[in-house]
């Protein structure tokens, strides 16, 4: 039995999404939603039905959702699309964002934009005090995440959205990790743009969405057709869209129960691990966090080794981000939260999801401490090497 505790990287397909996609493929999958004929109209109905389902997940009007190829494209569209006013040369973001926000914004900095990166406290919480003044009349875009993928911290975005709107800047919220895990409504966050990702909530990978507030001006980045109200040219990925819609519907239907169950399992796992792993530290706040996410510093081990050792035992977790070569890098989020490099190297992320069971958690709670003890004994972190490995 493999135990999958990496839902923040992408969860397994929900049965509802799988069934919807299977039906789509098994049925007549032909038809371009832009075509005039009956097949085209049928395809269009599927597309618009899914759009309505995804929109209602964040309490947005159906037509405000632009389908994209995923969270990364949505973030790129939001960032590059928001810079259409040449008088506004400033971008405000934070130090703990996903790489699909960090990298485009760093590229814009290279191209001459002024970038302000707001820092966070030890819990990964953005501080409004003293930071709001940076959002001024020169600011084109404020881009921040709602729930952090690595530590789970949920931000209170109200002050930032108000400051952005006062300054006339576009306010973008990356909600890829938050949607489906907490109640998210576009009105609550006051955003102009919101990034969604299907596979974080049990839909397929390769499909996402960007909420665009009606009336918000955004410059499309993919040109060449009228699809998605001109915001994203190209024939949509209808199979993916179908799966996204079904996953959104299912997520909404089960959310209250599911989130309570996941939170209970995560608390149980944390309590058991804290009891057995001396010096274990939970990164991020105890409250005000997406409850499925446990970012943990394990004393005296490298996260890299723990991750591999657990994988060999059938427990799948993650750490920071993978480099192009496939090696893991310590989390930039933990470093931004003031952790030392060594602490970041000793930290891993466990993220639960809709498919996680009590049995899996009880098993994980047994295996993880014993693997940790073995790794800590075999591979000293620093200092002189241990006695010869002879036995």
């Amino acid at each position, binding site marked *: 039995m493999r135990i999958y505790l990496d839902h923040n990287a992408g969860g397994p397909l929900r049965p509802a999404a799988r069934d919807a996609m299977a039906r789509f493929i098994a049925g007549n999958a032909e038809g371009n939603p832009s075509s005039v004929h009956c097949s085209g109209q049928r395809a269009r109905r599927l597309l618009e039905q899914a759009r309505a389902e995804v929109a209602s997940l964040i309490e947005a009007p159906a037509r405000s959702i632009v389908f994209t190829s995923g969270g990364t494209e949505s973030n790129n569209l939001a960032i590059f699309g928001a810079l259409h006013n040449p008088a506004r040369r400033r971008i405000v973001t934070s130090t703990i964002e996903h790489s699909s926000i960090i990298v485009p914004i760093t590229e814009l900095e290279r191209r001459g934009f002024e970038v302000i990166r707001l820092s966070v406290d030890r819990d990964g919480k953005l501080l409004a005090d003293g930071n709001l003044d940076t959002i001024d009349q020169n600011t084109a875009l404020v881009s921040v995440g709602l729930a952090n993928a690595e530590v789970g911290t949920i931000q209170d975005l109200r002050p930032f959205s108000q400051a952005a709107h006062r300054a006339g800047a576009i306010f973008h919220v990356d909600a890829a990790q938050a949607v489906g895990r907490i109640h998210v409504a576009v009105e609550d966050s006051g955003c102009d743009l919101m990034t969604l990702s299907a596979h974080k909530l049990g839909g397929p990978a390769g499909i996402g969405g960007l909420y665009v507030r009606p009336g918000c001006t955004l410059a499309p980045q993919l040109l060449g057709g009228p699809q998605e109200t001109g915001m994203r040219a190209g024939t949509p990925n209808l199979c993916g869209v179908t799966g996204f819609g079904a996953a959104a519907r299912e997520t909404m239907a089960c959310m209250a129960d599911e989130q309570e169950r996941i939170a209970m399992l995560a608390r149980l796992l944390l309590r058991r691990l804290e009891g057995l792993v001396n010096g274990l530290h939970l990164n991020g706040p105890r409250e005000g966090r997406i409850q499925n996410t446990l970012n943990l510093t394990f004393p005296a*081990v490298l996260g*890299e*080794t723990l991750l*591999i*050792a657990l*994988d*060999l035992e059938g427990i799948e977790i993650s750490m920071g981000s993978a*480099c*192009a*070569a*496939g*090696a*893991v*890098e310590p989390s930039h989020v933990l470093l931004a939260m003031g952790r030392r490099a060594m602490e970041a190297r000793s930290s891993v992320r466990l993220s639960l999801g809709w498919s996680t069971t009590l049995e899996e958690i009880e098993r994980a709670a047994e295996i993880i401490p014993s693997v940790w003890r*073995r*790794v800590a004994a*075999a*591979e*000293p972190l620093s200092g002189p*090497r*241990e006695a*010869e*490995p*002879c036995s």
Partner: protein
Amino acid sequence: MSERVLVAMSGGVDSSVAAALLREQGYEVIGIAMRLAPERPPTAMARRRGTCCSHDDFEDARRVAEKLDFPFYVIDLRAEFETRVVDNFVSEYLTGRTPNPCVMCNREIKFDRLWQRAAALEADFVATGHYARIERDEAGRFHLLRARDESKDQSYFLFTLGQCEMARTLFPLGSLSKTRVRALARALGLANADKPESQEICFVPQNDYAAFVTHNAPPERIRSGNIRNASGLKLARHRGIHQFTVGQRRGLGIASTAPLYVRAIDAETGDITVGQRGDLVSAGLIAGMVRLADPEISSRSEVKVEVKIRYRHPPLPASLRILDQDRAHVRFQNGGPAVTPGQACVFYRGDEVLGGGIIETALES
């Protein structure tokens, strides 16, 4: 349950076939690629194709693991490699010596750091694609032996292995020829079967040691000086002793009737002494950091051995005397050419590696 072996995979044909053979023999194989050298910009990266640690090489290794269906992980040992291998490499060159980073990497990374990782992952063995053999005698002692394919033999780089390390190390290629290894790779359908050999040092771009040292050294530690002949006559200026190695002929920039070779490097004065080929022969050497496979050698006064003083040099008959616990005196039977401080001096008896050390000084008499 089958024994678990952690195979260090570079993406080359040797370590790939090593992994495949172990899997055939029924071991539970875990492939590990080590990220050692610091990242380089894409252009330099492209130039480094064919050496280890590039993304392409990791992908080659990953494909082999997928094909043969065993788990594969890339691990990050850049920090350890930097402090234990690269820093040593740079500082050796700056002090006028010619280091052998492969010996250091085997000692410090593959058979130490990687071993700890193997233990953490409950592996019984570490395996590599080295061409060398480990045999166990009736008394239970392990012996490091030359590879059967003498042209590929890499036992020279492995002399630091002690009993502990050998007991838990596998060299599946030790009895195979390179031709046979390539044939096996083709038979297994491995995409890298005909991948060219890596000849260079993996972390030095374009094999340009001097540029690497210049780039990685504090400028005040670069020792410039003069090139002199044996009688002390100044022939030219040079811009750093790290650009020279004993026995070097090319790149001296001096016109001469007979070819000139570097005889000695003096880190104190910055002098490079050159001479003719015949001047390069030494009577013996002193080696430091000596490791012995068989501790009994140290108790005997003098042992007849053959020594290799560079990887590509033929073994030379010599007598060996252990001075104290980690220094040795080696006297060549017929003189030794281009004895180079910093290089390994490895002691053989027939096919067996008795031990070795790092050359400290050449002895004139």
